[in-house]
């Protein structure tokens, strides 16, 4: 369920879905399928519904109409909130994720070194800088070894070197048969990415 092997059918498929929040339809008529190897960049102005769409893809909310198929246990969402326990050290957070996703120690160690967590591995995460915390949050995605990454502004607050690392990680994940949907306002240098653009009708 949590392995990285390729599934045969699209693991996430949206057909003409509409999403509502607080009685308002935020996005309408979204159709696309995420196949192994696919990398989508999700663009659109503030408030156009990128976050809303990603959360629906992750299974947190149901579309008001249209059909959304998703294989259970194959997606992983990185939201704005870093989902990091401030009272724990980075190491403790990572260990918990390892246990939660049943990750092998080798996977965990690789993720730590790729994302350069080491300098603050034993620091309480409550005292991390915003970019450090974001790197740690991305570490969870890598550790989960789930095939479909749903990333909401993954590089928010990261410095140039970290952005490059994140881009490499995501691109590498997709090359090796995973897939990703990345909502972002930055011009991230991905080769061969497709885009979904949400345009405010107003």
């Amino acid at each position, binding site marked *: 369920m949590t392995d990285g092997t390729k599934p045969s059918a699209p693991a996430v498929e949206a057909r003409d879905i509409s999403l509502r929040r607080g009685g*308002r339809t935020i996005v*309408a008529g979204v159709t696309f399928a995420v196949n192994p190897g696919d990398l*989508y960049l999700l663009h659109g102005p503030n408030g156009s519904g990128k976050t809303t769409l990603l959360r629906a893809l992750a299974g947190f909310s149901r579309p008001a109409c249209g059909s959304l198929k998703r294989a259970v246990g194959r997606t992983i969402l990185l939201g704005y909130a870093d989902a990091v326990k401030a009272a724990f050290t980075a190491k403790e957070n990572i260990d918990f994720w390892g246990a939660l996703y049943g990750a092998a120690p080798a996977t965990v160690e690789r993720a730590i070194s790729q994302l350069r967590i080491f300098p603050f591995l034993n620091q309480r995460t409550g005292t991390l800088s915003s970019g450090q915390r974001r790197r740690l949050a991305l570490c969870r995605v890598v550790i989960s070894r789930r095939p479909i990454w749903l990333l909401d502004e993954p590089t928010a607050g990261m410095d140039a070197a970290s952005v490059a690392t994140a881009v490499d990680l995501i691109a590498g994940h997709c090359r090796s048969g995973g897939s990703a949907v990345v909502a972002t306002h930055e011009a991230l240098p991905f080769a061969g990415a497709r885009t979904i*653009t*949400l345009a405010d*009708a107003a």
Partner: protein
Amino acid sequence: MAFDLANPQRFEKLAARLVPLLTIASGVTALFGLYMALFDSPADYQQGDSVRIMYVHVPAAWMALLCYSTMAIASAIGFIFKHPLADVAAKSAAPIGAAFTFLALVTGSLWGKPMWGTWWAWDARLTSVLILFFLYIGYIALWNAIDDKIRAARLAAIVCLVGFINIPIIKFSVDWWNSLHQPASVLRAGGPTIHGSMLTPLILMGAAYALGFAALLLVSMRGELAERRIARLEQAGRPPSKATVA
């Protein structure tokens, strides 16, 4: 019938016709009932004229339970079939139920002073009705605390269904604990044990309360539906964004 009602437009039409009928029926029954209760029924050999509080108290207590049960059924339908009309019904029944519960508490309390020599006692029946009152309040507050109608409906339904545990506790509290309050004499296995001259006005008053409840429920549901229509119109000003995949 159920499908007829499930359509909001048809519900509107039906409700518009039913409300006046129910209101008149309730009023007429109440007039008869009150006449019999106040003038045409005997004073109790133990309680004297204070027994007449019974005709207000007992039906109110029945309605307190009935309203909650209505809410629970509507909540279950709304939760399982996701039908908005059921949510609206559950939401609209709550304030009415709270009012009946309050009435039962107040009249019971008024009756308690002459009968037991105290306004209030921490006995199982009284306490569980007080708790029912809190439950109503909590349920109403929950609806008001959440902007998103759908989420509010689902969460309130969970609360209502879980709280339903309290209903059998109230109903049977007098049998389970030895309580100050008297045991059921009308709604009990083995038939009523109350004399006909008191039973008839009591039943009439019960019917009047129930008809009144139905009328109020329909009125309040129509109000809620209208409110939702207005909210929808207000939101129509901000159209959704469209997606292009490239």
